[in-house]
């Protein structure tokens, strides 16, 4: 696979195992997707489904001892084999925004140090230039008094401000791909909307590719061209955002769409998925969702279904075509 086929990032059959108490535990199992230049892909799933691990694998931030199989290629090159200077130049093109900005910024250094260090040490930008660029980007993310902020320490800034700083800092090196791991989850609702709008604007302006991780399917649909859904460490469905939302093919996706409170006419309905989410290592042998699925059949428990191509994406369900149209958002059948 190369950049020539219009793919910037290509993840194929990615599986990750982590050492837990002396043995390897599967946290990702068969994750495949791709992102084109300037394209936005949403990655949605419940807590523990492996969204962060996917992003960490792409950023080469897996914990020590992790075993990775499958391929991650960026602009045609294998990411998992990179090291030294090649790894650094890859990382110069890929930036990441983390869920919890406060934990991800060195608390004893100034905001200015945090924002300009990579520019100055890796990109050979002079201090004055780096500071000027940082102030410029802070203005773009809605922080007018950048000069003053650069002198402050992280504890002097609110969570919302800090997340904007994080986003500005990620964009400072003009990455071609941004990995955003729940960038707004730690923020209050109004700030969430602001930060999301900023991120979306800047992305479009710069033609930057985005992997947007969230557990909010609605938000992913609003921001992303295509959306992928994860369950128990696997990708279960990947479609164009509007299709995924309006015509979900996997029962789990349908449950997720329904899990959001919706106001339809005069009823407010919350159709939650029964049972609790499964991690990859505790998923049942056949279809990982079998024990929570309301459309389960005996055959579902026999073999793990493959990710099957359909007209606008992929779905991992034996009964996808059969159930099509019956899984309308929020609908419960029985």
């Amino acid at each position, binding site marked *: 696979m190369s950049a020539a086929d219009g793919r910037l990032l290509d993840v194929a059959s990615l599986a990750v195992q982590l050492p837990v108490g002396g043995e390897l535990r599967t946290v990702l199992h068969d994750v495949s997707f791709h992102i084109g230049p300037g394209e936005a892909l949403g990655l949605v799933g419940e807590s523990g489904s492996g969204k962060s691990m996917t992003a960490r694998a792409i*950023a*080469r*931030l897996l914990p*020590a001892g992790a075993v990775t199989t499958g391929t991650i290629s960026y602009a045609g090159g294998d990411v998992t084999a990179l090291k030294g200077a090649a*790894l*650094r*130049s*890859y*990382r*110069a093109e*890929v*930036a*990441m925004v*983390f869920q*919890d900005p406060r*934990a*991800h*910024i*060195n*608390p*004893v*250094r100034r905001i200015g140090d945090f924002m300009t*260090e*990579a520019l100055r*040490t*890796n990109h050979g930008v002079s201090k004055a230039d780096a500071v000027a660029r940082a102030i410029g980007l802070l203005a773009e993310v809605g922080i007018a008094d950048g000069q003053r902020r650069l002198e402050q320490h992280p504890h002097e800034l609110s969570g919302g401000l800090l997340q904007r700083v994080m986003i500005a800092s990620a964009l400072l*090196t003009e990455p071609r791909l941004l990995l955003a791991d729940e960038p707004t989850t730690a923020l209050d609702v109004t700030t969430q909307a602001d930060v999301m709008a900023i991120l979306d604007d800047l992305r479009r302006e710069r033609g930057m590719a985005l992997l947007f991780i969230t557990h909010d399917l609605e938000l992913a649909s609003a921001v992303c061209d295509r959306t992928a859904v994860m369950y128990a460490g696997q990708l279960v469905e990947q479609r164009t955002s509007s299709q995924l939302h309006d015509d979900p093919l996997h029962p789990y996706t349908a449950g997720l769409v329904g899990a959001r409170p919706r106001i339809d006419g005069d009823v407010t309905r919350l159709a939650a998925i029964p049972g609790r989410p499964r991690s990859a290592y505790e998923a049942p042998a056949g279809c990982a969702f079998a024990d929570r699925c309301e459309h389960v059949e005996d055959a579902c428990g026999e073999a793990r279904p493959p990710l099957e191509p359909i007209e606008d994406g992929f779905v991992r369900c034996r009964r996808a075509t059969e159930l099509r149209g019956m899984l309308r958002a929020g609908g419960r059948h029985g």
Partner: protein
Amino acid sequence: MSLVELPTTAVPPARRRLAGRGLPLLRGTGLVGHLCAIVLLGALLVAVFGAAIAPHDPDLTNLSFAFVGRFQDHYLGFDSQGRDLLSRLLAGARTSILGPLVVVLLSMLFGTVLAIATAWKGGRFDTIVSAALDVLFAFPAIVLAIIASVVIEPGLKAASLALSVAYTPYIARVLRSAALRERSRDYIAALEVQGLRAWVICVRHLGRNMLPIIVAQGTILFGYAMVDLAAISFLGLGVQPPQADWGVMVATGQSGVLQGYPMESLCAGLCIVVVVIAVNLLGERLSDRSTLVTR
């Protein structure tokens, strides 16, 4: 009307001590910490200027004054060779204090570099280096000092080098767990994603944020180094007589102790004890503070 107004926001004493006033470097170490720092500053000044301010020549022997007590401006009297005791204490401060200082600086340097390198690299490198350090750990400092005094020549250099090597595994072990904790913190991952070089992250961020623990450990180590160096000198493997040194003086004062003139051993021993206590009390406070800060 109530007679007593209860304060609505009482700061618990522990918090007050931590937030407390004081010099920036010593903040949170309390009154004792500051007093210890004053004692140590005094000791350091004596180490540097002791020989210059000594009222008499510390090496001038006059056997007719052997074991004579206080006499004119010889405030502490004379030792077995009739040398002025006060002058010898002042002059001896240099090797007695700068020796441990060199040991602390060297072993902290080796230990910190090894700790951060093993914590960062992990894997086989960590296993091999840790195993090697464990082997080294099994050698008592005194044994290393004997080896060094044979390989090099007996003296302060050999003794300091031996102690630096002997302490390195201990420091590396303590700091490695601190480095591992720091390494696993999220801000380090964020720096890695920015594409910064590993050594840049290790020096500018990881190492720098470990500084409170490094300083605290170094301070505690100073006390050990001082006592061990004195013991090595006492055994005749460290500073060589007739050079003045507190450890040597404790040793050479032995004959006086047996003859009922304990002044030399006593004074030199007291100097060691005072400095070691001051440095330990301060080290303890710095280390309490550092664990509270890094949580």
